[in-house]
């Protein structure tokens, strides 16, 4: 027995196509059937809903009985890995251009770098190399794709800020820490601590999701002491990330780096609140005292 599913446009409410699927079909099968008729509409770029403005249906959900579904074209999609690699390779290369070829940027004035300038470059490169490697070897994404314009939007943000921070941090007139080496050491070790914390959380989240699956579980602290933050917040990876940039800003005594921290922090707070809400909605037994990103606060 087969099922006729009428696909309506969620804005105009006009019929798009009618597809035939087996009686035990799920949403993904419907999407594939749509693609069979309109080849440019591959499943990742299709959103289907029961109501014109309702919640998107998940690929695994069955369509039994629902003969009308509302359709939205999400636009051309691109893989998360591609987006992440583009976003993160930019800052790495851009910062290194400023650091390695200062004459090219600032004119031919001779530059004798401060120790902290070298250290800052090492931290920056470490951070983005870590992110690139994590994207390739650690992260398991629950969504395969995102809209293609994100790649431009995100790259503009990351590349722009990289140039902004790198320009001042490698400038021949750069002023090192006002409180001397103590400030630099505090900044450096604080940065390193938070980077390790961030990596630990990413590894813990990876282990939570078996390879190739889209399973979601409640994260808890593991044997790695850095993951104890899961007792207090839903997204400790962001907590550590913000920490990294605060200490980087302290070490380099750089207002541009601090502005980057604020912009990134703002975005991460929004993401964390969203993920926190999803966790609480999805899991009845989600730990009550947990906040989204800042222990006891937010």
């Amino acid at each position, binding site marked *: 027995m087969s099922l006729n599913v009428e696909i309506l446009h969620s804005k105009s409410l006009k019929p798009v196509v009618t597809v035939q699927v087996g009686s035990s079909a799920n949403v993904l099968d419907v999407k594939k059937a749509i693609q069979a008729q309109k080849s440019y509409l591959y499943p990742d770029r299709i959103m289907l809903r029961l109501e014109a403005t309702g919640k998107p249906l998940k690929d695994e959900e069955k369509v039994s009985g629902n003969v009308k579904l509302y359709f939205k074209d999400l636009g051309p999609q691109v893989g998360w890995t591609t987006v992440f690699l583009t976003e993160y390779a930019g800052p790495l290369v851009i910062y290194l251009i400023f650091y390695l070829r200062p004459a090219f940027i600032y004119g031919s004035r001779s530059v004798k770098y401060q120790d902290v300038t070298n250290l800052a470059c090492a931290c920056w490169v470490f951070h983005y190399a870590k992110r690139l490697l994590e994207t390739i070897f650690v992260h398991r994404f629950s969504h395969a794709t995102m809209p293609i314009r994100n790649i431009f939007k995100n790259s503009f943000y990351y590349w722009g800020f990289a140039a902004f921070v790198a320009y*001042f*941090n490698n*400038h021949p007139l*750069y*002023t090192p820490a006002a409180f001397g080496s103590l400030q630099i050491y505090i900044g450096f070790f604080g940065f390193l601590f938070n980077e390790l914390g961030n990596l630990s959380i990413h590894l813990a989240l990876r282990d939570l999701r078996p390879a190739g699956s889209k399973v979601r579980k409640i994260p808890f602290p593991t044997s790695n002491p850095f993951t104890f933050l899961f007792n207090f917040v839903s997204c400790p990876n962001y907590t550590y990330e913000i920490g990294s940039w605060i200490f980087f800003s302290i070490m380099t*005594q750089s*207002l*541009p780096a601090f502005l980057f921290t604020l912009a990134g922090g703002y975005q991460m707070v929004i993401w964390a609140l969203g993920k926190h809400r999803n966790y609480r909605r999805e899991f009845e037994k989600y730990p009550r005292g947990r906040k989204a990103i800042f222990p006891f606060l937010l």
Partner: protein
Amino acid sequence: MSGDSKISEKKSLKLSDYYLILYNVILTVGWSLILYVTVQTGLTWKTQNDVLTSKNLYKNNEFLLQIFQTAALLEVVHAAIGIVRSNPVLVFVQVLSRITVVWFVAYPFESPRSSVGILVVCTAWSFAEIIRYVYYALNIIGKIPYFITWCRYSFFIALYPIGVTGELICMYYAAKYLEPLNIRKRYSFLLPNNLNISFDIYYFFILTMLLYIPVFPILYKHMLAQREKILNGPSKKAKKQE
């Protein structure tokens, strides 16, 4: 330059509408004064050089321009609290460039004040604003002749680019004055400093002028779309409610 009132002719006026009528009437009078002063000053000019330096015009109009252009910031508030149906961000961007010219270009620097840019902005702004505020005021009470609506959604086609040209002329003169390092230093925050950041007023003006390239078409297209909607909209009824 959007700021269309929520109300249609059938409904009775709310308190906010009385306030908006008052606001629009005051601003109409204000910009009429600016136009009057502009014409009066222009009539005293004898030589081409008087025109090219907008002789005495800034001095005569300074106070009025500062008062009535700054008042336009209230329109951002009106949009934000919802007593007019406009996008507060668009309104802010539109007001921002003029506030910049009045307070950060003409007010601190002599060279834009004695440029033809002042004549251009005083003329273009006052015509544009008078027709706009008259339109808003009449729109709230719902008795608006088609002629006014047509002017409000047609004059901008010429006045808006002219005004922008005037703003750019003023900024160009400010930037030119600021270019030498010894002058630039007075208004900038340069390296080295403990925050490791710098603000260079010369480049700030260059950047601001370059920003007109992406922003102006957005606002102009927005106005053209409004014009299309209101003058050639699907029904005449809908026309009056906008």
